[in-house]
Each structure stands twice: as structure tokens, then as C-alpha cells.
């Protein structure tokens, strides 16, 4: 119990003193995960909507596969992305390994199935609602997808935030492809792993509290900006 208090005190101290390293790694955590969420949403949301709208032979299998991919172990994804981006791998020439870009790539792999699957679930309900109307109005497939994405944006925002939550707390993959390099690829989660390894539990726990606070702040900010809670329109 004592160490938990020390962790809280440490978190308070880090924030109160605007610790430069803390701000740097927090911003990098945000930069990596927000970018990854935007890319994963740009891929996953239209794909999930498309899956909801389109009927094809192996649709069920595709959905089952997508749901299974949600559970991809981040460490395995990290290793896979490492091998892709390694100098001796197929994309080695770009020299992306151990850069924030590599961490973004790994997180896109992890987050896209999650966002796509959650998007598909909410889009499927909306599509059941809209199906007859949009067919009757003669909407093309592209227009159908656009309509359910637009009108389901609140649920999609929730899907994207779920992706953010998974990404910001993820450590296994970004440790492997980012390397936890100080001032280059260190983020909150890898810093927590590092400090735990050093036995600095109070500092590690303090960073953990900062991470939780950051995740809550982003959720609150997004909800406030989108006025989905206050207005409660849908």
C-alpha cells in the first residue's frame, strides 16, 4: 500500500514540476497512438461499414477472422513488423526501424482489426435500420457506406476511442520496433517497463497514473469537442 501512495505522490510531483522528460514521452505517446488511431480508423471504419453493407460468399468467415484478429498478441505483431522493417527485411531500405514511424506501423496493425470490428458491429445495426430505405432511394454502395458512416459517427467515435485506449497502453509491440530509445522512441509504457525493470516502482507507478490520466483526458476532450455527451443528440 505504501508503494501505491509513493506512486501517486511521484505522479503528482512529475506533473506539478512539469518534468521535461515526462512531457516529452507523453507527447510522443500521444503522437504515436493518435496517428495510429487516425490511420487505423481511416482503414477500419470504411472496411467495417463495407462489411456491413456488402453481401458476399465468405462474409461470415471474414467477420470471424476480423474478430479473431482483434486478439492479436502485440508482441507477435511487434516481431512481425520488426522483421518487415529490419534492414534485412523487405522494407529495410526505408530505415524506419527504431523510429516513431515504426511504432505507428505496429500499432496500425494492432488497432485496425479492433476498430474495423467495432465499426462493423455498430454499422451492421444501423444498416439493418437503413437497408430498405437506402435501397429504395437508389443509393449506390459508396453512398450507402457514406450514409451509415455519417449517421453512425457517434458509435464510430467510440470505436476509435477504444482503439486509442488499446494503443496508448500497449507496450509489447512498440518496445520491439521502437527500441525504447531515450529522446527518440521512449513513450510512457516503455518507460514504465524500464523503471519497473530498475526496481523504481514508485516512478513506474507514477508514470502509470500519468498514463491513465492522459487516457481519461483524451476521452473527455474528444467527447467534449464532439458534444456527444452534453448535447446527447443521438
Amino acid at each position: 500500500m505504501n508503494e501505491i501512495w509513493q506512486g501517486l505522490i511521484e505522479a503528482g510531483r512529475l506533473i506539478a514540476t512539469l518534468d521535461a522528460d515526462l512531457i516529452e514521452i507523453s507527447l510522443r505517446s500521444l503522437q504515436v497512438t493518435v496517428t495510429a488511431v487516425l490511420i487505423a480508423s481511416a482503414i477500419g471504419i470504411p472496411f467495417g461499414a463495407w462489411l456491413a453493407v456488402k453481401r458476399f460468399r465468405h462474409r461470415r468467415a471474414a467477420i470471424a477472422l476480423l474478430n479473431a484478429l482483434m486478439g492479436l498478441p502485440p508482441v507477435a505483431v511487434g516481431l512481425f513488423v520488426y522483421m518487415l522493417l529490419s534492414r534485412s527485411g523487405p522494407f529495410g531500405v526505408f530505415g524506419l526501424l527504431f523510429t516513431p514511424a515504426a511504432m505507428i506501423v505496429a500499432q496500425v496493425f494492432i488497432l485496425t482489426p479492433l476498430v474495423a470490428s467495432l465499426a462493423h458491429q455498430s454499422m451492421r445495426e444501423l444498416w439493418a435500420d437503413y437497408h430498405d430505405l437506402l435501397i429504395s432511394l437508389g443509393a449506390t454502395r459508396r453512398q450507402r457506406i457514406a450514409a451509415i458512416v455519417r449517421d453512425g459517427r457517434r458509435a464510430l467515435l467510440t470505436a476509435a476511442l477504444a482503439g486509442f485506449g488499446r494503443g496508448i497502453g500497449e507496450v509489447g509491440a512498440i518496445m520491439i520496433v521502437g527500441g525504447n530509445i531515450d529522446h527518440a522512441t521512449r513513450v510512457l509504457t516503455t518507460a514504465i517497463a524500464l523503471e519497473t525493470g530498475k526496481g523504481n516502482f514508485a516512478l513506474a507507478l507514477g508514470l502509470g497514473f500519468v498514463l491513465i490520466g492522459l487516457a481519461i483526458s483524451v476521452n473527455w476532450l474528444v467527447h467534449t469537442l464532439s458534444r456527444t455527451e452534453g448535447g446527447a443528440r443521438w
Partner: protein
Amino acid sequence: MVDASILPLVVSAARVRRDGRDIIGPLDAELAAEGTTLVIGPNGAGKTTFLRMLHGLERLSGGTLRWQALEREVRRRQAFVFQSPVMMRRSVLENAAYPLILRGRTRRQAREAAAGWLARIGLAEAAERPAHVLSGGERQKLALARALVTEPDLLILDEPCASLDGRATREIEALLVAARAAGTRVVMSTHDMGQARRLASDVLFLHRGTIREAGPAEAFFEQPQTPEARAFLRGDIVE
């Protein structure tokens, strides 16, 4: 309408199967270019499926629908109002404007045309409110405005007043009369024989997925030709 109408429509030996069973047909029918056709018949006769088939929402398992225009054109120039209207999760105005946006109008044109319709159906005040807070009658009026905003040749309605009170029903009927006067062909189903008598210029009596009787409304209501139609109009249960 400047263009020639998509009507008349000739339906020949049309069939709709579902779960290995004929819901409709084989069925023959003709829809002339003018008038208001009321589709009536007992529950389970296939009225909804018949209307959906006309609109192209049901796949034919046999027979043909012959319109006076190409298929793409046919879909664009008709509209459908469902028994329980689908409200898109947008504002009332955006609901009414949506069909025009699908047809490539600019946002502004679409919203102007939609606003005109909202004024006509008495929902101008509600334009910016979300559509799902409307009452049942208001929803159905909005669905009707959304259908009419594209100025269709043919308007199909599936029991649009089934769950509405008298006042809302009267408003819907007035809109339908006005639409017909403006040249829109109306085909609708109803349970309400009073409504059928008020609106119909001709009648299709459906029973067990086929048309048992068709003809001018007056003749049908005065002197139904088939025993099923007679029984139905008497208020007997028809199986």
C-alpha cells in the same frame, strides 16, 4: 413531368418465393399511367410483398415487370413509403433533403427544396430537430415529404396510416390527393376500407399472393365479383 412517364406498367406471371414458398404469384397486373390504386386484401395476402416487388425491393423468381423506361430510370422515378418510416439519424431537414443529395444536387439546392416540402407538411418549425424525436404522424409526413421531394412519377405507400390517429391520417390523405393532382401516380395498400373508398380510383384485391379482382373503385365497392372480395368487404374473416 416533361419526360414520358415510366408508366404504364405491365406485370406478367410475376412470382416471389421466400423460404421455398410462393409469397406472390404467379400474378398478372397492369398499372395505368393515371389514378390512385388501392391495394387491399386480408392479412397475409401478400400486399406488402407485392408493393415491394413493384418497387424492385424483392427479387422476382419468375415473370417480368415491363416499364416504359430503362431499369435505372425506373428506380429513380419512383418512391416508396414504408409502413413504419425509417428516420435517418439526422435533422428533419436533412432527412427530407437526402434523396436529392443522392441524385447529385448541391447541398444548398437540396436543402431549399426540402425546406419547401417541410413548410407544406407543417414541419418547418422542426427543420433542425433530430428526426427521431418526431411523433408517429410527423414521421410519416416526413417520410412522405422525403418521397415526394424527388417529384416521382410513381409513389408507392405500404399502409402509411396504419398506426396514425385521425388527424394525422387526414393530413396524409390530403397530401396524397395533392400529389395526385400534381401528376404523381399513387399506389398504396390499406386496411381501412373508408380510406380506400375516399382515395381509390381503382382497386387491386389481393388474396393468397394473387390478384383476385381488379377494376375501378366504384364498381368494386358496389358490386364485387368474387366471393372472397364480397366476404372481405362484408367484414368476414377471409383465409
